[in-house]
């Protein structure tokens, strides 16, 4: 470590103002603070500070995403071998899935961090850590067949137009990763829904193949099937045509966006988020409550089988759980008041199920529900603040 520190100290002057490489100051600073905790000491206010910083907070979210990521990799491989009708061992399945998923992660990070570094240098600021999480979220919420260039484009769009033009991390109104997905959803709808985008058929170095071979083959997600299903029977199936149980949807070996399918894996990460307090448990709980409330309401007035779907099935389908744990809880775009968080989460859950069931154009309602509530988060906060102000005014009036 000492040698590394010495090396940094030696090259540091070149990156400082007036140095030869001062145009890369932010990048150098980013790497330096990544490696060593800055030894800048407090000059005003409290003399001691809590050990937590934004790097730690973001790091915890990335760790929390890892179960969903690993499961996603496995599931991508699993769906592939299911579709081509080959038996494959655990490691082969995972390996194939990892090969398929890794490029998305690389593209998302390279494009996003590249833009972040450039803008930070342009503004003369430190590099903000927000994209560490966003860069991991984007690959997890897209279908496996999304072309890489689209991911690059969507990432660039989201980082520049959703975050940076508002001032950077901490100032954005919309969830950056979700806006990347929304961009893809509206710009390239054919690549974001339907029944051919969820199962990857590719040949990586001789692993896997490009043709589906099984007889009954539908690549649609359960929600996609539900949205187009008419008649009195709603039987959700996996890609081989086998009906899916609730347990299947909970474990997540079903077609869907890369990281969203397994509620179990999401829950593992979610427990870490709740335990560490990085995500608000109030939002998570109220999203599920809101979803259950709407589902029950729909059950009561049900006129078709989809409306009769019980809430615990809704919870495990599509991006509901992933959105509840990782998207709705983004502290920047969520409600920031404690009372507001309850309302914010509840309405997300409620709207997600409403969109999902009653609007066949959008098989998945979670993305739109969260983005919609991002707009209203500030309004909810406003109401909570006004309530506090009114209380204070009332107290003053009584005192007089």
């Amino acid at each position, binding site marked *: 470590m000492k040698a*590394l520190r010495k090396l940094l100290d030696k090259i540091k002057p070149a990156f400082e103002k007036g140095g030869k490489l001062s145009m890369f100051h932010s990048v150098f600073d980013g790497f330096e603070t990544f490696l*060593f905790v800055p030894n800048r*000491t407090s000059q005003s*206010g409290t003399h001691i500070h809590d*050990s*937590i910083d*934004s790097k*730690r907070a973001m790091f915890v979210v990335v760790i929390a995403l890892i179960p969903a990521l690993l499961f996603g990799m496995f599931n991508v491989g699993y769906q592939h071998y299911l579709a081509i009708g080959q038996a494959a061992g655990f490691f082969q399945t995972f390996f194939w899935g990892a090969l398929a998923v890794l490029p998305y992660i690389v593209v998302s990070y390279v494009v996003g961090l590249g833009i972040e570094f450039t803008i930070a240098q342009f503004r003369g600021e430190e590099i903000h850590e927000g994209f560490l999480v966003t860069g991991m979220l984007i690959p997890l919420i897209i279908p496996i067949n999304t072309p890489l260039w689209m991911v690059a484009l969507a990432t660039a769009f989201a980082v520049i137009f959703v975050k940076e033009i508002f001032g950077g991390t*901490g100032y954005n109104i919309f969830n950056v990763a979700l806006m990347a997905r929304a961009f893809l959803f509206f710009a390239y709808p054919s690549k974001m829904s339907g029944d051919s985008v969820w199962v990857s058929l590719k040949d990586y170095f001789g692993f896997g193949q490009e043709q589906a071979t099984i007889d009954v083959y539908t690549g649609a997600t359960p929600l996609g099937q539900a949205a187009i299903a008419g008649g009195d029977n709603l039987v959700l199936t996996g890609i081989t045509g086998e009906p899916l149980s609730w347990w299947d949807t909970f474990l997540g070996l079903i077609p869907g966006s890369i990281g969203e399918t397994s509620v179990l894996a999401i829950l593992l990460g979610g427990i870490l988020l709740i335990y560490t307090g990085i995500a608000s448990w109030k939002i998570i709980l109220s999203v599920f409550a809101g979803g259950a409330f709407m589902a029950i309401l729909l059950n009561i007035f049900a006129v078709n089988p989809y409306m009769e779907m019980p809430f615990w099935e809704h919870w495990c389908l599509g991006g509901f759980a992933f959105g509840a744990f990782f998207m709705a809880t983004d502290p920047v775009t969520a409600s920031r008041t404690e009372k507001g968080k309850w309302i914010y989460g509840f309405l997300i859950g409620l709207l997600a199920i409403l969109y999902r069931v009653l609007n066949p154009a959008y098989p998945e309602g979670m993305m739109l529900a969260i983005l919609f509530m991002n707009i209203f988060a500030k309004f909810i906060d406003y109401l909570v603040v006004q309530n506090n*102000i009114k209380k204070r005014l009332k107290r003053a009036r009584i005192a007089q």
Partner: protein
Amino acid sequence: MTDVIKIKKGLDISLKGGAFPEVQSASYTENYALCPTDFHGLIPRVLVKEGEQVLAGTPLVADKNKPEILFVSPLSGVVSAVKRGEKRRLLAIEIRADQKNAALSYPVRNPLDMDGVKVKEALLEAGLWPYIKRRPYDVIANPRVEPKAIFISAFDTAPLAPDYAFILKGQGHDFQTGLNALTKLTKGKVHLSIPAGSGSGELKNAQNVEIHRFEGPHPAGNVGVQINHIDPINKGETVWTVNALDVLFIGRFFNKGRVDFSRLVALTGPEVYEPRYYRCVAGIQLSALLKGNVHKEIPLRYISGNALTGTRVEMDDYLGAYDSQVTVLHEGTDVHEFAGWVMPRLNMFSMSKTYFTGLVQKICPRKQFDADTRILGGERALIMSGEYEKVFPMDILPEKLVRACITRDLEKMEELGIYEVAPEDFALCEYVCTSKVEVQKQVRTALDLLKAENGEE
């Protein structure tokens, strides 16, 4: 006797170096000073010249805007220097003390037999007025405005804070006389907040005041929190606050007929060899307490006050006027911690459960932590929400108020309750802030702005 008021939100930061309950005299020094910079917002007018003889109680400085507020010499001697800084800003009036300890003499009086105006005049004349502060604005009280009530906090919950009950022991008479004097200054109540379960007779048996018992983590001992729970300040109202240890000065003045600024000061912090209490006089040069008693081989930060709200000083600076504590920390400029943000950091304190502080404390409840003055992260826009709320036990939305302060939105600040708070109330918010925002500085700037805007002196 009222019910115990339980404070739930807050944080006790456990640090190494709490003061043992034993008292030693500070080593002899002849260097003392009155530092006008200790009194926020004061525009001083110097009343003495270099070389002039002064007694304990001789006025050295007056408030330019309210000349009746005097600041006096803590003991007798010669004015050795009038120190000025940039733009001739008055930094200190240094006194070379003689050993005579002579003082201006006043009649011994019982404040209960006096009327309020006389008590006020006596306090102003004796230079004790600056120990009475006011909210809003957290500055020296304006003697021309009568307060709705007076609040006294008789305990300190800040990190390594001195034990007030220990310091007050045996001084019950002076303490009670001081309280009696304060009751004469308001038509409202005088509220004394004491820790629940305190066995201190001096506190429990205080007369003529309303006693409130508080329980809970820091900032339960902050007078601002106590006001908010007892009788919150509304717009247009003024309350005064006095530190219980400064009440002693007032009491002694009436009992003895002279000023007596002797204090017990807790010398605390991880870098102090023998943290304990020192007997000394207000305005003492800190080297008298510190020399030979701190780890010298590493860069150190000396703080007059506690680690959250204290003032940064050097060894040859002077004890702050309101302070009964000195903290010494490792400065930390020499530390290059590798990838601290992924490390377990078992020996560092954090409120966040992304570290294992809570677990460590559960396993060894007496565990005390190291701390240095590094900021431990980069400054960012406010990202995490709900952090401030966890350590801010008032009926105020702290983050919204801080945002209003940052954007200098006067109207919003007023609506959100700025008049009830002092920068010290936000010290914990600043401590726990993931984005490392300088919260206290923002609140102080906002209060100054508001005070100027409202045309208050």
